[in-house]
């Protein structure tokens, strides 16, 4: 009898903690799970800079291919000849060009082994030609980006970056 009473008391306590904490937060939230391609800001590394390209909430087994058409990337104060894109987490960069059109660039990368639902996929390194270099895909150029899933389907609905400094996976 004593054990049952303690069990009931503990259960009520746990329930109370949960309800209390939830009430403190002002209610429940509905998480946003939109597929997103994220281009990080340049971070100084060694004598140059590094940009991480990541994805979050990718559907259909995750992202397995990405193609950024000509003039898809935009960069300023960057030495185009120094730009090197390297695949991460199973991605392999098949082709890249940041030289033909000054200030612009393109690349294609695939992951033959698996898809990435959330995480980094490409690391871009370069040397700067001036202060505060930028390397990104502008919203106006989103149409030049094609994403493919691990299930061999086109990922048609996705957003480009969000201005947020963190993502969860």
């Amino acid at each position, binding site marked *: 009898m004593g*054990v*049952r009473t*303690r*069990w009931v008391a*503990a*259960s009520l306590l*746990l329930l109370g*903690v*949960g309800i209390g*904490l*939830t009430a403190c*937060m002002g*209610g*429940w*939230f*509905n*998480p*946003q*799970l939109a597929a*997103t391609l*994220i281009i*990080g*800001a340049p*971070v*100084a*590394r*060694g*004598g140059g800079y590094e940009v*991480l390209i*990541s994805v*979050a*909430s990718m559907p259909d087994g995750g992202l397995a291919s990405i193609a950024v058409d000509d003039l898809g990337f935009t960069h300023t104060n960057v030495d185009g000849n120094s730009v090197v894109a390297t695949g991460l*987490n*199973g991605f392999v960069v098949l082709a890249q060009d940041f030289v033909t059109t000054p200030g612009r660039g393109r690349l294609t990368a695939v*992951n033959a*082994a*698996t898809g*990435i639902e*959330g*995480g*980094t996929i490409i690391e871009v390194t370069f040397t700067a030609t001036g202060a505060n270099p930028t390397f990104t895909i502008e919203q106006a150029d989103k149409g030049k980006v094609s994403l493919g899933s691990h299930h061999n389907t086109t990922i048609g609905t996705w957003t480009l970056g*969000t201005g*947020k*400094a*963190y*993502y*969860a*996976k």
Partner: protein
Amino acid sequence: MAVVAFGLTLAGGPFSGSFTSELLLDPAPNLAFASLDSNFTLNYAFYEFVTTSESEFYLLGYIWQGFGLTGRLGAFNVQADLLFGPSTADFIYAQEIVTARLAGVEVGFYWAMLSGAVLGGPANGAVLRLAGSVGGCDIVSVTELGARIRDEEFDGITIVHVDTGLSKSYVTNPIVATQTGSVCVGGFTGEKVTINGMSFGCIEDLSTTLYVSCLSGFEWVRFEVVGICSGLSWLSLNLALSFELQTKSIVATPRLILGECLCIDTYMEVLTDAPDNTIYGAFTSLTGFSLYGLGFTYRGQGVTVKELTVFDTGRYVLTTPDYGSVIESLAEAVDKGHEYFPEYWELLSIEVVQDGCCGGITELLINTYFERDSGSLFGWGMTHVEGTFAVNPTLSLGGEIEADPTGLTQLGLCIEVSW
């Protein structure tokens, strides 16, 4: 809680902690500064609790500030975590875990909140986990109230800083798909029941897992049996029977039973004509065996010598030292977020761990990797050397050097102070 934890750490008492700083230099062209990663940890113990403050700096940025609390309150074990992003002045994540063993039942209450500063947030939720044994069967019930916890089926949550790639991982994930305006928001979102150790007919150890969600109703039920004898002494099968709403699948995964032969580990798998080497889908026959790796390990008197060779580099990889320097399938490494070397097929490792002359531990690790098409002597790909020298029980100095056929690629210096 942050204020309380910080206040307690300032209030004096039994402190412990550590400060670690690692400076990396890029040798080419002229020892340029590459990165500076520093961690400062401060613990404060009181009664049966320990509060922890963890600060992480990268280059000149203050990336993470975490606070933790662990301890016992009567029959309850309590753990709490808070994470802030100082570089953006954001609250990021909070988690509370309360567990207890009551009347033979393990009760766990998990609660988490993710802020709107993180892509996907804001989100919050809780999980009630009950586990116990009845009649020789182990039963686990996980009731999801807008969150999931890390287990065999689901990951916890990893929060990543976009620019640096630095991350923090926690058990309770409050990002669960719901439908706006549905009854699933703010209430029950899923229930998972797992029963292990059931007997059914001639099967002595049957595991079953049922998962239902508020969003879709019935999600799946799975029955698993491990180690089915095939009649061949060297071959067994694992069987998984899954029912989803519109599909049923049965997957038999063949496993080789290898005896003790010398001290060299063999990494082998059974091949079938199905793309994933299972007995399912496109399978019609076993097609052969694949020896995809070899391993050798010797341990004695503080010295460990390890040699690993990967033959099938398209599907298997060597993980980095941080992830154990083991042979792992590429798909598994990517899925679990393990770091690996895609370009190397062989590792020769020598590790020495000895007591320091003046207290503490002195360590030396030499890892040499070989590459298939490097064109250098013996196909040498890269050598990584790192060492830690204990000056006294509280101060250690370390360094690391990395070189590949192009020359010296990295130099690092490390200092760790603990008290």
